[in-house]
């Protein structure tokens, strides 16, 4: 269902279409944190957005619901939800989308819930904001949702406060809240980063089950490619605010094209054999001041040539919907 290539005129528009999204820090000369990012997500599909800290993946995700820090300003592009541009929608309309058609969960379950309200009340509040039902029915719905996300004794847990729940349980509450109005799209911004490894798998399994049961689309943001390998059908790899590669997860794992993707995959420690040293990508993401004028990965890329540092490679779409931004790949010399 999910397609990465721009939709053709005959097919219905994808559920979510991000087109040439550019976001920069406020003020003249403010650093561009998201630079002409484009991707599509079809109805019921699962898309992963991958990259290291500061690559702009969270900013991209937040932009869908316009939840970015006000110091970040939209510089251009559009975010279409079923053809409707959310970046230019009215305040009332975006409020209806938030928690209605699009649910969102965040990285820090410890701090993402209001500490002084019972979790049930927080879910009820989300329901009442969108659905014309009474408080009692909303409470019943909240208990049902807590059961749906696998919280034991939901009728009792509904009165618990966040500090009485573990991190994993809190993230389940967040998921219940995000799903309370049966959204068509769930955005999960690093949903497992703050959790224990065993809990991480549980949360991903839960998301996978809910995605199938409810038929909703999921956009999952992570720095851990391995985590979403068998969940997301498609992957967008971002580096320093730009999409460097996108394609079906299976193809991308089998044959990464961009040198950055390749190294990102290589840095996942293998489970089937012992290693003395973990593979890393030397260097760090360049800052605004040291950003090269050419390919942004050229400062860390072992294959970089002179022109990589001078001219920026465009994101070229290849047969099968795969796209990659690398001079060398275009000539068949990399990967």
């Amino acid at each position, binding site marked *: 269902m999910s397609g990465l290539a721009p939709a053709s005129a005959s097919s219905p528009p994808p559920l979510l279409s991000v087109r040439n999204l550019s976001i920069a820090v406020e003020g003249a000369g403010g650093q561009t944190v998201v630079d002409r990012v484009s991707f599509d997500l079809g109805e019921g599909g699962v898309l992963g957005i991958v990259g290291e800290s500061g690559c702009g993946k969270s900013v991209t995700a937040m932009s869908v*619901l316009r*939840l970015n820090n006000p110091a970040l300003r939209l510089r251009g592009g559009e975010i279409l939800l079923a053809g409707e541009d959310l970046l230019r929608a009215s305040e009332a309309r975006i*409020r*209806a*989308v*938030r*928690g*209605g058609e699009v*649910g*969102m969960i*965040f990285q*820090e379950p410890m*701090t*993402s*819930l*209001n*500490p*002084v*309200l*019972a979790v049930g009340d927080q879910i009820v*509040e*989300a329901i009442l*904001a*969108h659905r014309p039902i009474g408080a009692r029915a909303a409470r019943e719905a909240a208990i049902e949702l807590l059961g749906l996300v696998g919280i034991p004794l939901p009728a009792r847990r509904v009165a618990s*406060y966040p*500090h009485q729940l573990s991190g994993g349980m809190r993230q389940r509450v*967040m998921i219940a*809240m*995000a799903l309370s109005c049966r959204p068509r799209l769930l955005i999960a911004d690093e949903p497992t980063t703050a959790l224990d490894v065993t809990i991480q798998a549980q949360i991903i399994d839960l998301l996978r089950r809910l995605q199938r049961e409810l038929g909703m689309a999921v956009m999952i943001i992570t720095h851990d490619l391995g985590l979403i390998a068998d969940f997301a059908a498609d992957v967008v790899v971002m580096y320093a605010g730009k999409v460097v590669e996108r394609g079906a997860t299976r193809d991308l794992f089998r044959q990464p094209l961009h040198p950055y993707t390749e190294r990102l995959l290589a840095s996942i420690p293998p489970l089937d054999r012992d290693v003395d040293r973990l593979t890393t990508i030397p260097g760090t993401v360049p800052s605004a001041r040291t950003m090269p004028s050419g390919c942004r990965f050229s400062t860390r890329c072992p294959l970089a040539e002179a022109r990589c540092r001078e001219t920026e490679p465009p994101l070229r779409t290849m047969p099968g919907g795969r796209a990659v931004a690398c001079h060398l790949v275009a000539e068949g010399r990399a990967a």
Partner: protein
Amino acid sequence: MRRFLIRRLLSAIVIVWAVATIVFFSMRIIPADPAEVVLGEHASAESLAAFRRQAGLDQPLLAQYWDFISRAVVGDLGQSLVNNAEIAPQIWFVLPYTVVLAFASLGVGILIGIPIGVLAAVRRNSWIDLASRCFALLGFSFPAFYLGVALLLLFSIWLGWFPVMHSIRFGTWAEHLYKLVLPALSLGLIQAAYITRLTRSTMLEELRKDYVRTALAKGLTMRRVLFNHGLRNALVPIVTAIGLYAGSSLGGAILTETVFNRPGLGKLLVGAIAQRDYNLIQAGLIVFALVIVAVNLAIDLSYGFLDPRVKHD
């Protein structure tokens, strides 16, 4: 909860005892003889001695102290040195005036301070924020008595909206309320300055937190996010500060009552100090201490309602 209450009550007793003791001895260090103050400087040595004997002031200091403490424990606050009247009824008579003034000024402070503080935090660096900061600075720098005089000058003398002299003792509820306006404003505006600044800074801190983003992501209205989530969390530090401020608020009441010639605990105390009425001063200050201890206990108990993470045990 029960253990918490018992512990707090015990510490309250110790605090009030300490206050009573300090007041008792410091009163007797002050270089003024109540006998001379009451009887006048031309009184004979015999009448001065008779006064001292009758008031028990000729007894050794520790005997006087024991007499004072042992009677205070059973609620006997003694008699006025000046006119021999029982002290407890006098305090009971004026206490409601002070309590009403304190609550009214707190109401003014909250009603002005919290909305302006919230607005200033939301519209940070706007003209509202700037105005709120000027208002807070002005409030800090204004002594309560000076603000009272300024209000009297503006509203009573220039505009003529309120009477200059306040004879409160007889009147209807409406009259009481009418006469409460200026005193409550003069004390309340200063509290509003504190509450504004505190609300602004705690709200700024709260609005940066993750749960606010979650609340927005649910599609709640901005108003609901601000009040149900942001302010609800900011209340704990705000209420704490109001409690800490209760002491200086009562201190402000003394000055305000004097400026507006309004009956009250403060006015009673000022009169007692002018006349070196040891017994009345002692009694008044003990009541002050009791009120402050009670307010702080109430604040502590309110945490249990404001923040579910607080358990009193």
